[in-house]
C-alpha cells in the first residue's frame, strides 16, 4: 500500500507540474530575442544577445531571430552536433594532457571514446566506462556535462521546429536553430538545473573539485593475493600451490567530484549518464528518499510538460492533453505492473522459504530485492526503472538485470516502443508525433476522409518520413541484436540461455532508441560493442531528426483545412485509444518474437516445473 502511494504521489506531482512548466517553455520557444518570462529575459537577455552577436544570428525589426527553412535548420543541427561529438572525443583522448584531472587518469581508449562521444551527442548517455575511474573532472564537466545540456537542447529545438510546422500555415520557415538552441539552454535547462542542483546538494550530493578522498576504514580489512614475479607469473610453493600473501586494508578511496551540477541536467535533459559508475544507486549521487524523488521527477518533468507546450503552441491545448493522455495510458499500467512484478518477487525463492530451508534463504524476502538499494526498496526502484526507460533517460537506481524476467521485460519494451512514451526531451514528443501521423492516417481513412492532423493534410511525403522515423529504431534493435548473437564478439554476457539473450537485446534496445540504460551483466566496453552500439545511437538519433525536420518543413508550407464535423477530432478519447493501439501494436508486433526468446521464455521457465 505504501508502495502504491509512492507511485500515486509521484504521478500526481508530475501531472500538476505539466501546465506551469509547459506554459513557461512555450513562452520561451515563441519569445523575442532577449525576452523570457519570470524576469529571466532581463537577467540573461544580455547573454542571449551576446551569443547571437558571436554566432551572427540576425534579428528582424520585431526582434525575432531571422528564420530559415527546414534544410538550413537541419544542417545547423547536424553541424552543431558533429562539433559536439568531436569536442567530446578530443577531450577524452587528450584528458591526460589537460588540467582538471586530479586523479591523474589516462587518455580514454579510442573506440570507447568514440562510443562515449556519440552517446553524449545523441542524448543517449550509454556508458561503457566507469565514470570515476575513466573520465577526468574536466572531461566530465566540459565534455559530458556540456553535452548533457546541448543534446537536450537539440531535442527541444527539433520539437519546436516540428510544432511550428504544424501550427503555421503556408510558411516557408520553421525557426532559427541557433536561436532555439540558445534560448532552450539559457532559459529552460540552465535555470531548472541550477534549482535542482541546489536541491540535490542540500540532500548531500557531492559538488567539489577536490581529489578523491582517502578515509580510514572503521574496521580494517585483510585478504590474501597471489604473489607474482616481474613477468606477472604467479610464484609457486614447493608443493605446487600458489604463493599468497596477506594484504591489510586500512583506508578506502571515496570518489568525489562536481557531481550535483551534472546530475541535475542528467535527469532534466533525459541524459542519464551518471557521474559515478553505479549511477543513481550511488550514495553520493542519490543519497536520500527526497533526492530520489526529485531525480525521478526530473526524469519525466520536461518530456511531460512539453505536451502542454505543444498544445499551447498549436493554439489547441486539448491536443497536448490528448498526447499526454496517450503517454500516460501506456506508462501508468506498465509502471504499476513493474512494481507488482517486483513486489511479488521470485517464486523459486518463495518456494524455498515455504519449505523452511533457512540456510539458503535467511529471511522471507519483501519482493525481489536483488540488485536494488535497500535504501529505496521495491516501489522506488520500480518507479525509477519505468520512468527512466519510458523517458530516454537511462539513469538507474537499481540494476534492471536483476529484475524478475517480466519485471525486466517492461523497461526493455518501454524502450522498444521507440522512446515515445515521454521519451527524450523533445525527441519523445516528436517521435510520438510521428506515430500520430501514422495513427491519423489509418483513423482518417476509417472515417472516410483523406487524413489530416491539426488541419494539415497527411500525404505520401509525410508518410514516408514518418515511416523512416518509426522504422529506423526497430531495424537498429533487431539487426544489431542479430549481429551480436551471430558473432563470438557478441558473447560477453554474464548469463547463459535466455537471460544472456535478454542482456544483448536490452543493450541494442537501449542504444537503438537513445535511452542509454544498461541491463548490467553485459560487458559492453569491448571494441565490438563500442562500435556497434555507437553506430546504433548515431543512426537512431539523426535518421529520425532529419525526417522529422523534413516533415516540419513540408507541414509548414501547407494550408490549414478548417475543421468540420466530418473532420476526425484528434483530442477525443477514441483517438487517444487509436494512438495507444498504434504505438503498442507496432512495438509489440515488432518485438514479440525476440521477447519470446528472452524474458518471456525465462519467465515461463521460472514459473513452470
Amino acid at each position, binding site marked *: 500500500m505504501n508502495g502504491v502511494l509512492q507511485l500515486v504521489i509521484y504521478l500526481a506531482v508530475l501531472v500538476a507540474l505539466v501546465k506551469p512548466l509547459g506554459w513557461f517553455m512555450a513562452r520561451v520557444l515563441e519569445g523575442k530575442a532577449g525576452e523570457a518570462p519570470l524576469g529571466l529575459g532581463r537577467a540573461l537577455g544580455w547573454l542571449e544577445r551576446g551569443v547571437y552577436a558571436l554566432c551572427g544570428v540576425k534579428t528582424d525589426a520585431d526582434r525575432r531571430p531571422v528564420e530559415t527553412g527546414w534544410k538550413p535548420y537541419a544542417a545547423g543541427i547536424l553541424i552543431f552536433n558533429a562539433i559536439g561529438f568531436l569536442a567530446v572525443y578530443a577531450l577524452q583522448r587528450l584528458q591526460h594532457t589537460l588540467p582538471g584531472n586530479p586523479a591523474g587518469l589516462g587518455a580514454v581508449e579510442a573506440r570507447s571514446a568514440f562510443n562515449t562521444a556519440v552517446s553524449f551527442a545523441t542524448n543517449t548517455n550509454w556508458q561503457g566506462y566507469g565514470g570515476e575511474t575513466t573520465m577526468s573532472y574536466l572531461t566530465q564537466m566540459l565534455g559530458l556535462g556540456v553535452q548533457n545540456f546541448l543534446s537536450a537542447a537539440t531535442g527541444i529545438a527539433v520539437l519546436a521546429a516540428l510544432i511550428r510546422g504544424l501550427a503555421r500555415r503556408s510558411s516557408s520557415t520553421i525557426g532559427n536553430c541557433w536561436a532555439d538552441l540558445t534560448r532552450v539552454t539559457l532559459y529552460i535547462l540552465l535555470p531548472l538545473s541550477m534549482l535542482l542542483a541546489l536541491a540535490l546538494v542540500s540532500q548531500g550530493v557531492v559538488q567539489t573539485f577536490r581529489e578523491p578522498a582517502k578515509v580510514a576504514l572503521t574496521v580494517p580489512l585483510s585478504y590474501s593475493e597471489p604473489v607474482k614475479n616481474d613477468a606477472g607469473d604467479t610464484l609457486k610453493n614447493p608443493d605446487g600451490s600458489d604463493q599468497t600473501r596477506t594484504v591489510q586494508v586500512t583506508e578506502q578511496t571515496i570518489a568525489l567530484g562536481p557531481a550535483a551540477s551534472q546530475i541535475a541536467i542528467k535527469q532534466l535533459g533525459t541524459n542519464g549518464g551518471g557521474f559515478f559508475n553505479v549511477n543513481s544507486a550511488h550514495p553520493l549521487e542519490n543519497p536520500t528518499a527526497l533526492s530520489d524523488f526529485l531525480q525521478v521527477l526530473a526524469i519525466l518533468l520536461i518530456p511531460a510538460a512539453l505536451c502542454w507546450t505543444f498544445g499551447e503552441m498549436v493554439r489547441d491545448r486539448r491536443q497536448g492533453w490528448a498526447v499526454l493522455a496517450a503517454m500516460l495510458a501506456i506508462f501508468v499500467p506498465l509502471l504499476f505492473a513493474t512494481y507488482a512484478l517486483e513486489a511479488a518477487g521470485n517464486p523459486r525463492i518463495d518456494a524455498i522459504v515455504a519449505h523452511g530451508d533457512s540456510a539458503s534463504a535467511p529471511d522471507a524476502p519483501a519482493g525481489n530485492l536483488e540488485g536494488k538499494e535497500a535504501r529505496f526498496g521495491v516501489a522506488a526502484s520500480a518507479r525509477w526503472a519505468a520512468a527512466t526507460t519510458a523517458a530516454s533517460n537511462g539513469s538507474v537506481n537499481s540494476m534492471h538485470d536483476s529484475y524478475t524476467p517480466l519485471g525486466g521485460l517492461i523497461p526493455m519494451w518501454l524502450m522498444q516502443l521507440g522512446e515515445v512514451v515521454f521519451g527524450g526531451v523533445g525527441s519523445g514528443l516528436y517521435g510520438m508525433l510521428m506515430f500520430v501521423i501514422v495513427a491519423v492516417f*489509418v*483513423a482518417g481513412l*476509417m472515417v472516410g476522409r483523406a487524413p489530416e492532423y491539426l488541419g494539415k493534410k497527411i500525404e505520401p511525403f509525410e508518410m514516408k518520413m514518418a*515511416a523512416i522515423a518509426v522504422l529506423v529504431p526497430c531495424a537498429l534493435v533487431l*539487426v544489431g541484436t542479430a549481429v551480436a548473437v551471430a558473432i563470438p564478439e557478441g558473447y560477453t554476457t554474464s548469463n547463459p540461455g535466455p537471460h544472456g539473450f535478454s542482456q544483448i537485446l536490452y543493450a541494442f534496445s537501449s542504444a537503438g532508441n537513445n535511452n542509454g540504460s544498461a541491463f548490467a551483466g553485459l560487458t559492453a566496453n569491448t571494441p565490438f560493442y563500442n562500435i556497434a552500439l555507437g553506430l546504433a545511437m548515431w543512426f537512431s538519433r539523426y535518421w529520425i531528426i532529419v525526417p522529422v525536420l523534413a516533415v516540419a518543413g513540408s507541414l509548414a508550407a501547407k494550408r490549414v483545412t478548417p475543421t*468540420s464535423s*466530418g473532420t476526425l477530432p484528434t483530442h477525443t478519447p477514441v483517438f487517444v485509444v487509436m494512438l495507444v493501439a498504434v504505438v503498442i501494436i507496432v512495438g509489440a508486433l515488432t518485438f514479440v518474437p525476440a521477447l519470446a*526468446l528472452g524474458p518471456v521464455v525465462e519467465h515461463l521457465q521460472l514459473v513452470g516445473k
Partner: protein
Amino acid sequence: MSSANTQSAPSIFSPALVRPAIGSAFAKLDPRVQLRNPVMFVVWMVSVLTTLLAVAGFVGRGEQGGYSSTLVLVIALWLWFTVLFANFAEAMAEGRGKAQAASLRKSKRDVQAKKVGAGHWSSGDGQRHKATDITSLKTESVPGGTLRKGDIVLVQAGDTIPGDGEVLEGVASVNESAVTGESAPVIREAGGDRSSVVGGTQVLSDWLIVRIAANPGSSFLDRMIAMVEGAKRQKTPNEIALDILLAKLTIIFLLACTTLLPYSIYAVMQTRAADTASTAAPVTVTVLVALLVCLIPTTIGGLLSAIRIAGMDRLVQANVIATSGRAVEAAGDVDVLLLDKTGTITFGNRMASAFYPVDGASAEQLADAAQLSSLADETPEGRSIVVLAKQKYNIRERDMHALGFDGKPATFVPFTANTRMSGVDLPVSTQYPLGRQIRKGSADAIEAYVSRMGGTPSAQARDIVNEISRRGSTPLVVADGKGKTLGVIELKDIVKGGIAERFAELRRMGIKTVMITGDNPVTAAAIAAEAGVDDFLAQATPEAKLKLIREYQQGGRLVAMTGDGTNDAPALAQADVAVAMNSGTQAAKEAGNMVDLDSNPTKLIEIVRIGKQLLMTRGSLTTFSIANDVAKYFAIIPAAFMSTYPALGALNIMRLNPDTAILSSVIFNALIIVVLIPLALRGVKYRPVEASRLLGHNLLVYGVGGLIVPFIGIKLIDVLVNLLPVWS
C-alpha cells in the same frame, strides 16, 4: 435505367464473373504484374522459395530438423493460394467493370460519317440554313474513326453520331441510351446548354450539324470504357501513402522474421550447451516464411486494387463517370458543396402558394377568377394555380369546353413577352350576361390593362405586390375586364421535399452547402432558410461563382459543384470535384472531372458517399489486417520454438496441434482474403454520423473484431486440418 446497368450489377459471385476471374488470377502470377504491389510481391517471392524448399526436400536435400516435404509442399501451395486469391479479388473487381465496358463498346461501332467539306459551311454567316439547304450541302462519306477535332459533320435521322462534338446548327431528338441507359430521347440543339452530343448515340429525327470535339481514342465513350476497364490505373496520392505504410510494415516484419534465424541459432546453441541431450533445432526457413506471410499485411495488400476498382465501379453503377480515381477520393473529402438552386434545391418552377384578394373582392372570387384564367394554361405555374384553388377553396376544376355557351367557345389568351399577361375570354352566357374577361400577369402589365379598361390601378394590390416581392416570391395580379383588380396570387419557389433532411445529413458529415442562384438576395435568403442550406450566393454570375470557389479553396477547403452550361465551365475547372451534367454542353463536360449521366444535380451527395466509402474500406481493412497479427503470433511462436524452449508451449492458448499450427495460420491468412472480397467490392457501410463516433464504431468492428476473428478462425481450421490423418 437501361439493361446495360442492370446487367452490370450481377450478384457478387455469379459464375459469369467468377469463371473468367479464375483464369485471370493465374495470368496475374506474372512477376511483372506482382511487382506493382510490394506486399503481394513478397508473398510471390517466398512462394517460389518455399516451393523450391519442398522440391529440395523430395530429392533428399530438405532443411534439417524441419517439416516433412509433404507438409512444406502444402504450405507452399497455400502461399500460392494467397497470391492467387489476391489476384482473384482484383480480377473479380475488374470483371464487373469489363461487363459494363463490353456493353458500351457495342455502341462504338465504326460508323460512316458525312463530313462537310471545308468552306461549305461557316458558322459566321449568321444565316440559319433551312432544312432544304441540308440536302444540298456537299458532304463526303468518311469512316468515323478518321475524324479529327474540328471536323464538321452532318448527322441526319437514323444516323449514329460519329464522335463527341458540339451542335453548330439544327435541332434533333437523340437516343442516348447507349451512354446514359435512359431510353427516352433527348433534345439536342445549337446554342444554349443542350448543344453537346456524344459519339455512338443515334439521331432519331431531324438533323444536326456537329463540330467534332475529340480526336479518335479520347472521346467520351473511349474515356468511359477505359475507366470502367480500369486501364487508367495510376495510384492516387492517398493510395501511395497507404502503400508506404504497408511497405513499412512489411519491412518491419521482414526484419523481425529474418533476425529470428540468428536468434534461434543462438538459443539452440545455448540450450545444447546447457543440455547435451537436447534435440533443439533452429527454426526452419519454411516456418520463418510462413510467419512472415502471416504477419505482413496481405489481407489489405491483396484487396487494395480490388477496393479501388470496385470504388470506381460503384460510381459507374450510380451512372457517374469519373476521369480519374483522384476525383473519386477527393469527393470523400469535400467540405463545401455548391448547388444550383433551380432543379437541385427547388423544383424548376414556381408554384402558387396563396391568394390575396383586394378592394373588397372575396378570396373565393379571386380564386375562382384565377382558376378560370389558368384552366388552359399548361405551364407549371398555371397548373399550380388550379391545384391551389381546389385545395384552398375547393373550386372544382372545370372543363374549358364547358365554359363555352351557345356554340361560342371560351378563348384562352396565352402569355406573350409583349403583353406579359395571360387570361381567358368567356362568351356571353346566362352566368355571365356581359361575358367575362380575366387577365393575370405582372403588376405593371395588369396596371396598364386596368387603366386601359377604364379602372384605377389598385393601391392595395401594389402594396401586396411589394410585400410579396420582398419575401422573395413572385406576385401575379388578377384583374377583370371591368377594370377591377381582384387580387394577387403569390408564386413561390417550392423547395423539394426531403432536401432539408439531406442537407442536415451533409452537415453531420461535415459538409457545408452553398446555394447558387441568380435571384436577388432577398429571394435567395428566403429559400436558403427554407431549404436549410448553410449559405447562399445570390445574383450569381460565372465570375462570382469562380471567385467564391477560389475563396473557399484559399481557406483550405475542397469544393464540389455541379454545372451544365458553358458559363459554368470556368467554375467547374476550378472546383476540386466538378460534376458536369450529361445534358450539358461539351465545354462543361470537358471542364469537369466527372459526368453524371442521369443529369441529376443531387447526385453529388451520392458521389460524396461513394468517395468516403472508398477510403473507409481501405482504412478498415488495413486495421483488420494488422489486428489479425496478434493471434498469428500466438499460433506460430510456440509452434516454432517449442523444440528449443518447451516452456513456450504455455503461449499456445488456442491449443493447436504444434505440427499443423503454422499450416492452419497460413490457410487462415489465405482464406480471409476470399472471405473479405464481398466487403472489398461492396465497400464498408457509410453512416452519416460525426467522425469520432464513426471511428469508434469502425475501431470496434474492424480493430477489436480483427483481434478476435483469427483466434476462432485458426482454431477451426486447425481442427479441420487435423481431421486429415496425414500430418502425424
